[in-house]
């Protein structure tokens, strides 16, 4: 199965999807590298290993849809805007920063994309936006990303209850990477996300696949039904976080990290797998170097208003 996945990724993916996956991968790696050099302030949570989730979802979302992201949002942002310059400038506090450097890694607003750093807080807000969309712009939806750990928050349930009651066009995407900061899901969640979603009458889909085409085909009709008024949809991706929680705080054993790596879509020896992969991988890596060099050379950002 793993080999099959690898084949698919290297053979069937469009250049566009593969390019985006690799952009996110190299962006995140570069960030950890910049951190190591002391060039990034505060904290930053990379989505290494989870890149395929927003890449798979990207074409399912339209311009009028709202996306709510969380602390681990770089991939969500890049998949929506393909704007590594603005994002890196935001994280580094340089000119051209999407939010003037005020928000940093976790607090970004751009058009109909918003991220914030309080777990669970975005769900009621996304429900409110979905309520507005339901009445003012039928056919549009609000999508909110949360981690498995965030299912500990009461706000999640208040929002699901209202969203289901009012049949809101809300999609809650859970990236279940099996761990919340240092706490394994098994130590913080009773029961399952599916049972919880179903308890509110929400439609639920568990996604074990990392095959982008398969994920899209599975989700497209469910998204459509949400747009048409079928009420909220909860999607749970079984995924893996390759990197540390934020910059260097990995408490997992070597064995656990190895297991996460075994699930990586990015072949460690990727360069040798196919000529196309090798070429695009090198291109993405080089592009991110250019982005980083250019952004680091910019003056410090200024705050508007």
């Amino acid at each position: 199965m793993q080999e099959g996945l690898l084949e698919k990724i290297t053979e069937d993916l469009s250049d566009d999807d593969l390019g985006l996956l690799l952009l996110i991968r190299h962006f995140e790696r570069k960030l950890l590298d910049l951190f190591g050099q002391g060039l990034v302030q505060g904290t930053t949570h990379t989505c290494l290993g989870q890149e395929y989730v927003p890449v798979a979802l990207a074409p399912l979302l339209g311009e009028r849809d709202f996306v709510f992201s969380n602390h681990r949002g770089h991939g969500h942002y890049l998949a929506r805007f393909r704007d590594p310059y603005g994002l890196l400038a935001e994280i580094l506090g340089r000119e051209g920063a999407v939010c003037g450097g005020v928000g940093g890694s976790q607090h970004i607003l751009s058009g109909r994309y918003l991220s914030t750093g309080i777990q669970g807080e975005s769900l009621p807000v996304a429900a409110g936006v979905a309520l507005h969309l339901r009445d003012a712009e039928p056919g549009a939806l609000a999508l909110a990303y949360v981690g498995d750990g965030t299912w500990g928050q009461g706000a999640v349930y208040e929002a699901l209850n209202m969203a289901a009651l009012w049949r809101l066009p809300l999609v809650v995407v859970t990236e279940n990477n099996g761990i919340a900061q240092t706490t394994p899901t098994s130590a913080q969640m009773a029961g399952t996300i599916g049972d919880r979603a179903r308890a509110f009458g929400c439609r639920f889909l568990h996604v074990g696949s990392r095959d982008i085409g398969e994920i899209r085909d599975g989700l497209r009709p469910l998204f459509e039904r949400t747009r048409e008024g079928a009420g909220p949809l909860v999607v749970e991706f079984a995924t893996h976080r390759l990197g540390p929680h934020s910059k260097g705080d990995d408490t997992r054993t070597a064995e656990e990290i190895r297991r996460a790596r075994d699930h990586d879509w990015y072949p460690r020896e990727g360069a040798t797998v196919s000529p196309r992969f090798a070429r695009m991988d090198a291109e993405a890596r080089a592009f991110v170097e250019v982005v980083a060099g250019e952004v680091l050379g910019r003056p410090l950002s200024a705050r508007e208003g």
Partner: protein
Amino acid sequence: MRVAESLNRALHEVLADDSSVRVLGEDLLDPYGGAFKITKGLSSRFPGQVLATPISENGIVGVAGGLALAGGKAIVEIMFSDFVTLAFDQIVNFASKSVSMYGRPLRLPLIVRCPSGGGRGYGPTHSQSLQKHFIGVPGLAVYEVSPFDDHRELFGEMLARGEPCLLFEDKILYTRQIFEDGIADDLFRYDVLPQAGQVTRVYLEDPEQADCVIIAPGGMAHRALAAMRTLLLEREITCLLLVPRRLYPFDVAPLSPLLERTGAVAVAEESTAGGTWGAEVAQQVHSRLWGRLRRPVSLVHSAASVIPAAAHLERDVLVQDTAIVRAVQELLP
């Protein structure tokens, strides 16, 4: 007209004037019309704009924030202001931060209405005045309903601010008559100082002639008036009462000439002792007028206590007009 009716009318007008405004809260559908009937009639007349919600204070304020974010306007009713603590995250970490944390101003027209205060024997979890917990939050404005105000104008001002506003509504005030035509009662007159942010000025004959200034939010107005009457009739002390429409942000500068003239200032509020709004006002007065004050600004507030249910015990804890009388007498020995 009673204050409750005036607020209800104002909400009717707000919804009629602007179809992008939504009102959300628990139990506010007709025939009930909200625990204090402030939202009565709204759901029948504007069914699409009024939404009854589950008991989910944090969730409701979040939903309201989302509506405002997406281009609507939202007014939330918290059944008893005590429960606004459950929405603290959405108010402090989402709504008020969002107007500035994305590096550029973002409009978020959102009002959270909070029926507050004691005096009805509702006990410790249904009688608090939590204003002080929301003072000093960047991007959050705190208002208090006053019987001197035009409430339609008040809602208009808050929505036009484009940032989240908390509106505290003293429950005792609901049953009181609103003041009209510049007449507070047989003794006192009032007018409004627009240049000071719509601060109401209540005075005996001549606003320039007073021995002492009392600054108090709308919910204290009647107690302050009662104290002023006692002070006048029993001690021949004349007070000027200033009732700010907005408690935070609050700028004492435009009031300085009035305060300076007497050099004696008391701030009265119903919040319990410690970290109060009054302390914030006093700090501003001290740093502007130190040396021209006869004594430090006097703070009048409820005792540092939970608010008991039994009427006699509750009375001991909450600010009464007698406490204001005492404070003014201490200022003018």
